[in-house]
């Protein structure tokens, strides 16, 4: 859990001259009180949930269950990353469930040995993701260019793409995937040694980027970081990275699907927080008129975000298809859509636009997957699962609304 949190945990934005540990903690506390809560509530919630299930059933924290959990949540987390971007704009994408199903159908059809256009492995996955990105672009153009509310456009998409899935799978009812590379996406586990090598690389990259940031800030003389905090962060990251691999190695090993999720999280966090594009997404979500007057091309930002949403849904769909080694008439259905949106919101991304982080996709789906997994272990029905997840979602949205009001009041 905290592994990826720390992996993304970019150096906190701007501490000023005052840089004792106490002062940093005090400023954090001040901004939480003002309503800028970030991912903190979900971290606390997660600890409570884990503690609760562990007290009920000691199998909950076993290595086997841990690796299971990582694979279980990979698909939803991937889709939820796209949702975070759409929510940052203050829009919504309801089509992601069935768009992910479309990607599954595309890879499954492409790899069919009898087909005249047999495409295998990575190429099939790339094509599927391009197709879903174009679907996102198509839907987004109605929102960005014509001005149709995204809720309705993507609701239409939800119906339409479900129809396309049913039509293209047709009477067979199921397409089996034989391509080993595609199947490995969700079913391959790294060997113990490779797992440790991955952890070592991750730690090295994290240390490098943290220290480069420290030196760059020092060179520009805007503030000096507290070296105790930096050291604690590095140590914490190292412990969590190696700990997670060690724990996973006790069972099947570290799953490739989760490595993919972490790479995606790091990449999209970088895009959201370190590039002009990301900055403009936040600006459009916060005040589209201000963004327009500042010379930002609001239409293009919206188009690109809907493309990201489609592409990430597609990638998530590939993970789902790979996990089942097949696609059937239910591809993209079930709770995928609701889980992905709920994950982003529970993780702390605001529905009002402009506030949230990519990491919330992981935090939220951790909560959902943990609750689902724990309730299964305790032997309760999925009825209970739905009720609990619903209650958590309501709590998250309420917290969002409350913190938004506090932020607004903090100014005046």
């Amino acid at each position, binding site marked *: 859990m905290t592994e990826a949190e720390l992996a993304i945990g970019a150096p906190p934005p701007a501490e000023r001259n005052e840089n004792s540990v106490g002062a940093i903690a005090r400023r954090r506390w001040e901004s939480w009180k003002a309503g800028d809560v970030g991912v903190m509530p979900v971290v606390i919630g997660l600890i409570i949930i884990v503690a609760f299930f562990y007290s009920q059933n000691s199998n909950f924290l076993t290595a086997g269950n841990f690796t299971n959990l990582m694979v279980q949540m990979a698909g939803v987390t991937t889709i939820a990353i796209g949702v975070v971007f759409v929510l940052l704009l203050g829009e919504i994408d309801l089509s992601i469930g069935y768009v992910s199903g479309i990607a599954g159908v595309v890879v499954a059809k492409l790899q069919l040995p009898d087909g005249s256009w047999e495409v295998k492995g990575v190429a099939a996955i790339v094509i599927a993701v391009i197709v879903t990105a174009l679907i996102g672009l198509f839907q987004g153009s109605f929102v960005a260019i014509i001005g149709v509310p995204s809720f309705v456009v993507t609701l239409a998409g939800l119906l339409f793409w479900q129809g396309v899935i049913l039509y293209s799978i047709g009477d067979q009812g199921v397409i089996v995937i034989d391509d080993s590379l595609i199947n490995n996406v969700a079913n391959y586990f790294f060997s113990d040694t490779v797992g440790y090598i991955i952890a070592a690389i991750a730690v090295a990259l994290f240390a490098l980027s943290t220290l480069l940031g420290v030196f760059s800030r020092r060179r520009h003389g805007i503030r000096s970081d507290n070296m105790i905090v930096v050291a604690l962060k590095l140590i914490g990251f190292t412990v969590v990275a190696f700990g997670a691999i060690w724990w996973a190695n006790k069972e099947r090993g570290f799953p490739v699907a989760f490595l993919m999720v972490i790479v995606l999280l790091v990449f999209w966090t970088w895009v959201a927080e370190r590039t002009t594009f990301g900055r403009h997404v936040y600006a459009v979500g916060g005040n589209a008129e*201000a963004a327009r007057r500042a010379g930002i091309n609001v239409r293009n930002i919206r188009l690109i975000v809907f493309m990201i949403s489609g592409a990430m849904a597609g990638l998530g769909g590939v993970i789902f298809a790979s996990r089942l080694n097949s696609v059937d008439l239910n591809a993209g259905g079930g709770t995928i859509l609701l889980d992905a949106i709920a994950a982003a919101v529970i993780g702390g991304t605001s529905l009002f636009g402009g506030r949230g982080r990519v990491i919330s996709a992981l935090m939220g789906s951790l909560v959902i997957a943990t609750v689902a997994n724990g309730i299964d272990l305790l032997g309760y029905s999925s009825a209970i699962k739905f009720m609990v997840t619903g209650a958590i979602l309501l709590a998250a949205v309420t917290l969002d609304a409350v913190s938004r009001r506090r932020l607004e009041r903090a100014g005046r």
Partner: protein
Amino acid sequence: MTETMATPSPAGVVTPRLETRGVSKSFGSVLALDDVDFEVRAGEVMALVGDNGAGKSTLIKCIAGIYSMDEGEVYSDGQKVSINGPKDAARLGIEVVYQDLALCDNLDVVQNMYLGREARDILFRLKEPVMESRTAEVLRGLSVTTISSIRQQVASLSGGQRQSVAIGRAVMWNSRIVILDEPTAALGVAQTRQVLDLVKRLAEQGLAVVLISHNLHDIFEAADRITVLRLGRNAAVFERRAVTQQEVVHAITAGVPTKVPGVGATETEAEA
């Protein structure tokens, strides 16, 4: 800002930093501006006043390139220029701070100051340290000291602080002419004071400042000269030191006596 400092406030007869001659603009059959002359010099605060519908906003939007003029000429430092869009205005160093501020509440001060013009490298990566130190420098240069952290979200700032950020953003891009649309409209007494001080400081640094306001008290506090528009025409231009508030009010409501046209004479009594 170093550039603007280079041209110190000149005295005596000078070529205006920006001048418009004979500007006319109509919307359908409504003549919003009729043969309007306007000028602002480097190092002065020129107030632009007039009742609602006098044409202040229309004139400003023409200068900012948001509206195109039907007729009229624009001179920058004596050179004839044409403004055919916001880009042209920006190239001439014209920056407008609009009444509704156009800040993003969810971004911090640095992010707002650089919105749409972020410092970045070839990989589109933001250069945060550069932007942060430059923002601090600009705000310090304007003696804006009330903002405790420039990494604070704009949502948590007071109205006066927000106005300071908006003004700071307008002046940090080598701007030469800053137009402020009702900068004190929503502010309390202390914050109005802060903003007016800031406005005067801009002029002291050699910028040409246009101040649009309804509040004569603010205008007499900050402006060097006052241009009065009435019903889309020039009513008067006053030296602030040589005029009383009564005279300005009269010009706003009735026009200058010698030039009073027949129309609108009936409205005169209401205001006075």
